[in-house]
């Protein structure tokens, strides 16, 4: 393990390291999820000219605490025709991989549970397992709405996984490593400038994978009531809620690490930079959710396969050619080139997606 940048008095024992970082990751995820819930509700409310929760504590800061207390005291209801074991197992299966992703996310230089040399692959592989838990929940509930929601989730994850992974490969090519730690160290300039199209594709694809608006089809309140967690209550529901926000946290952390330069930044301490960038990415997620209306299921699929997938392939090709042809050129030179490529491609492909597109005239 490369622990070069840890403080010198850091306990070198493997188990001490493991225990400390497990506690840090658990605390980080749980606290950030609570902060995110509060932040999302407040920010979304203000953007919609409302106030949001403001009763519990100053500025409603204790609202997530009150919510979690309430949800813990609620009765746990299992439908009589449900598959009891899978119904019980599903929240756990959905929750565990989200926590596991944080094992490779560097909070500051060297401050990570384990510096895997296949970090990006690990993130992509582990984060897909959550879908398994969600599909188990939808299936075990024995409810047509939850099954529909879960089917949509599986469909969207299978489709969006491809452009997401392809857009990550561009970053990996530039950094020359799969380790998240080394990718951050390779970012002399944030990769969002060098890989603007890759960032855009990854961000959109990630939104679809974690089922945030505008791709929140699987829990579309207006048609599927609540999607896969319709039959869940009490602590199990709380776990699903936690998963939803922890996934947003994962996306924010991965975007920060791969595209925004991770912990790197001037003046402020590095862990604060990391937190600030994560917060900023989450703000953008909330911002998009407030603004964009939900897409239809056919639009979701068409967008993945007709727009994101070819663009991700072209982006990968362009990046690979650039690295092959100009192996020693400064990254700054790639910035204008890649921005030009992005603008041209987005303009070209947006021709395919216009207003009223897909409407059938009878």
């Amino acid at each position: 393990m490369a622990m070069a940048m840890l403080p010198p008095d850091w306990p070198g024992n493997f188990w001490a390291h493991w225990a400390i970082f497990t506690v840090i990751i658990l605390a980080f995820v749980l606290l950030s999820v609570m902060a995110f819930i509060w932040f999302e509700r407040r920010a979304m409310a203000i953007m919609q000219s409302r106030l949001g929760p403001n009763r519990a504590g100053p500025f409603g800061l204790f609202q997530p605490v009150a919510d979690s207390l309430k949800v813990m005291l609620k009765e746990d209801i299992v439908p009589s025709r449900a598959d009891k074991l899978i119904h019980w197992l599903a929240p756990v299966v959905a929750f565990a991989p989200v926590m596991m992703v944080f094992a490779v996310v560097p909070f500051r230089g060297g401050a990570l549970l384990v510096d895997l040399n296949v970090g990006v692959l690990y993130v992509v592989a582990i984060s897909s397992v959550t879908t398994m838990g969600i599909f188990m929940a939808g299936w075990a509930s024995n409810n047509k709405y939850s099954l529909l929601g879960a089917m949509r989730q599986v469909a969207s994850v299978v489709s969006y996984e491809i452009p997401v992974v392809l857009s990550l490969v561009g970053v990996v090519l530039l950094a020359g490593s799969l380790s998240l730690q080394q990718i951050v160290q390779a970012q002399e300039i944030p990769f969002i400038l060098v890989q603007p199209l890759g960032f855009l594709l990854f961000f959109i694809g990630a939104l679809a994978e974690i089922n945030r608006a505008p791709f929140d089809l699987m829990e579309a309140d207006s048609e599927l009531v609540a999607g896969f967690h319709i039959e869940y209550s009490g602590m199990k529901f709380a776990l699903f809620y936690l998963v939803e926000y922890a996934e947003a946290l994962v996306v924010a952390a991965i975007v920060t690490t791969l595209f925004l330069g991770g912990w790197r930044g001037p003046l402020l301490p590095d862990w604060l930079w990391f937190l600030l960038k994560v917060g900023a990415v989450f703000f953008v997620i909330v911002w998009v959710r407030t603004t964009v209306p939900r897409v239809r299921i056919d639009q979701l699929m068409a967008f993945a396969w007709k727009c994101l997938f070819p663009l991700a392939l072209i982006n990968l090709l362009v990046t690979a050619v650039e690295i092959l042809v100009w192996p020693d050129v400064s990254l700054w030179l790639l910035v204008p080139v890649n921005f030009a490529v992005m603008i041209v491609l987005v303009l070209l492909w947006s021709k395919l997606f216009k207003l009223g597109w897909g409407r059938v005239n009878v």
Partner: protein
Amino acid sequence: MFEHYGIGIIKGLSVTLRNLFRIPVTTQYPEQRLTPSRRTRGNELIWNQQRCTGCGTCAKTCPQGSIDIVTSVKVEENKYRVEKFEVDMGYCIFCGLCVEACPYDAIFLGCSFERSCYRRGELVLAKEGLLESAERRPSGYAHPEVAAELPAQSLLLDKDKGKRS
């Protein structure tokens, strides 16, 4: 020209971002109250006992028949005595015809909008319950001279002058 090139999403994003820096229009009702229009038809009637002559015009105009007035004759003064003046607010549709019809300006609609109650019987207001008081202020409906003295309506447009809470 760039309508179909993703500009719409950017426009929408800018709208929501601008909202972030504006004061929300929401009023936190029990603590903050908006002043209603001066000519509001609040859900109550206000009756002026001194001016009422007991002519019963209001009861005749009421399309709902919710005003019940019983008078007796005071022979020595050549006047009516109002024995019973009862309004069933449960039937009232707040049309304001009684206010417009009263020849002696003895009946008004009120400003209040929060007079809900638990029992239907409580909606029947009798003589003393109909009088004007600090909580029961007459509104300026069909009475411009009353309206002139009332505070101006608070508009949500003025919220920008307030502060966020």
